[in-house]
């Protein structure tokens, strides 16, 4: 072995544990502990005070069950709308040239930048019986604000950018020449879409949809303002948690909060798996 290669080996020698604890590590762990991890542990410990039977009883009261039903049902509708319209928007933005394209591309992110309380106040005003948009539905007996339809619209609004922004870059990579090749080989428009365009963008669509669903399930600010927040009618789980905290029912709030937390962890796992799947497709 030459001298140079020994030196090289020493240079690359694995560091000891002590050397690894650098300033960035300390900052990351302190910040994360104070802000996120300790509060998370505190919430879990709060729930451990209850025995499983008590926990189950609090988690499955009729009001709680109805809020899960409404939250997940409405969030599913919102996620599906965003899946379809988001994919279509990404398609239109990537493939077509038209006046107003830059404007459309610019405002897609607005729901992320706009505070949810502002979104809630505005949607509630525009969609109430005499509002700019609500008045067109009122004659048909369709009430939007202060009903589940309004909750769905608020959820669609706040999660609008997810699908567009995950599908757009992937679609950009799919060459239009592949489609043309499919057509020239005699494939129908439907076949081309189904067998050529869709497969590579499916992971991105599903990732965006899962993110949109997660956001819709947890959404509070806009929904609390557009809904009437009546149990069994349009009360969603996050608002129930809020009402219980306001009513000083901390155990009740903790249990529902934990159910929501568990769900968001599962969704986070699904999103990570989908993203890993998407990368594999890439390679």
């Amino acid at each position, binding site marked *: 072995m030459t001298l140079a290669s020994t030196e090289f080996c020493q240079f690359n020698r694995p560091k000891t544990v002590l050397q690894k604890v650098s300033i960035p590590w300390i*900052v990351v762990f302190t910040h994360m502990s104070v802000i996120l991890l300790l509060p998370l542990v505190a919430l879990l410990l709060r729930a451990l005070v209850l025995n499983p039977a008590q926990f189950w009883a609090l988690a499955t009261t009729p009001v709680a069950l109805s809020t899960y039903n409404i939250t997940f049902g409405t969030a599913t509708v919102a996620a599906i709308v965003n899946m379809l319209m988001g994919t279509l928007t990404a398609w239109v933005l990537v493939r077509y040239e038209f006046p107003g394209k830059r404007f459309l591309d610019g405002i897609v992110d607005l729901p992320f930048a706009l505070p949810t309380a502002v979104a809630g106040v505005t949607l509630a005003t525009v969609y109430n019986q005499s509002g*700019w948009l609500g008045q067109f539905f009122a004659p048909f007996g369709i009430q939007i604000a202060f009903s589940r339809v309004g909750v769905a619209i608020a959820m669609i609004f706040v999660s609008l950018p997810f699908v567009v922004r995950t599908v757009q870059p992937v679609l950009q990579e799919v060459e239009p020449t592949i489609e043309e090749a499919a057509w020239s080989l005699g494939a129908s428009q439907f076949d081309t879409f189904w067998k050529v365009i869709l497969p590579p963008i499916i992971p991105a669509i599903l990732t965006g949809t899962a993110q949109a669903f997660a956001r819709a399930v947890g959404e509070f600010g806009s929904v609390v303002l557009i809904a009437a927040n009546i149990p069994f009618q349009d009360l969603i789980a996050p608002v129930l948690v809020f009402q219980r905290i306001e009513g000083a029912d901390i155990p009740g709030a903790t249990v529902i*909060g934990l159910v929501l937390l568990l769900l968001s962890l599962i969704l986070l796992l699904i999103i990570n798996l989908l993203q890993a799947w998407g990368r594999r497709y890439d390679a």
Partner: protein
Amino acid sequence: MTLNLDAQVPMGETTVQPKAQREWAKIGLILLVFAFFTVILIVPVIYVFVGAFKNGLTGFLGTLSSREFLNALRLTLMAVAVAVPLNVIFGLCAALVIARKSFRGRTFLLSVIDLPFSISPVVAGLMLVSLYGRQGLLNPVLQAIDLKIIFSFPGIALATILGGMPFVAREVIPVLEEIGSEEEEAAKTLGASGWQTFWRVTLPSIRWALVYGIILTTARAMGEFGSIAIVSSNLIGRTQTLTLFVDSAYRNYDSQGAFATAVVLAGMAALTLVIKQVLEHLYAQRHTVK
């Protein structure tokens, strides 16, 4: 001049697809997307401005000069001033750790950093109350040193930090991974200290991503609502941020006040989007020049 529709589509496609049919499909899809955006996004956003100026400029300015509004503005800016620098330092450190070190549990750490994105703001607020609240785990300690966190400014600051935690790290990590560590290692072999390497080599190459992350964190910090609604006692003029002010004004049938404040917040949101677009444009230009 003859009307040549074929010029708009590449030659190869016209032979396979009837071009009129494709043209109609295109127009139809564009109209559908615009209709969706009009109903969900554009009309509501226009209404923010109409609602704010319903009583003319005096009504708008009346809200903006009221003591309640100014207090809410001050509190929001204070929360931003505390949350954004802390999240920037955290984000940079997290990005350096994740992009430059390989260790077990790297993906796990990345998921933990992402947690605030997926946790409902209400649950985030509940978590903070469980630790720092009156019945919280740390309450004995906090009482001993006479520090009040929940229902006062520190709680609002904590909630704001929690909401904006992942943005800087999320923006910086991919850039750090893309540029690789060769230049940093070169600087180190030439005798630069860790700090010098970061300041002279790493920071210049990630500055766009960093600025982008700061903008997103600031926007999120200004708009934080659900978690603050829980940790703040919502006292008008004292522990009320701008978003809480919008909420309470609306509930008290002061729609003028709610929309005037909403315009201020929406204006800041629009400003962040404009800055973002400009930055993306600049970034794209630099890359094409290279």
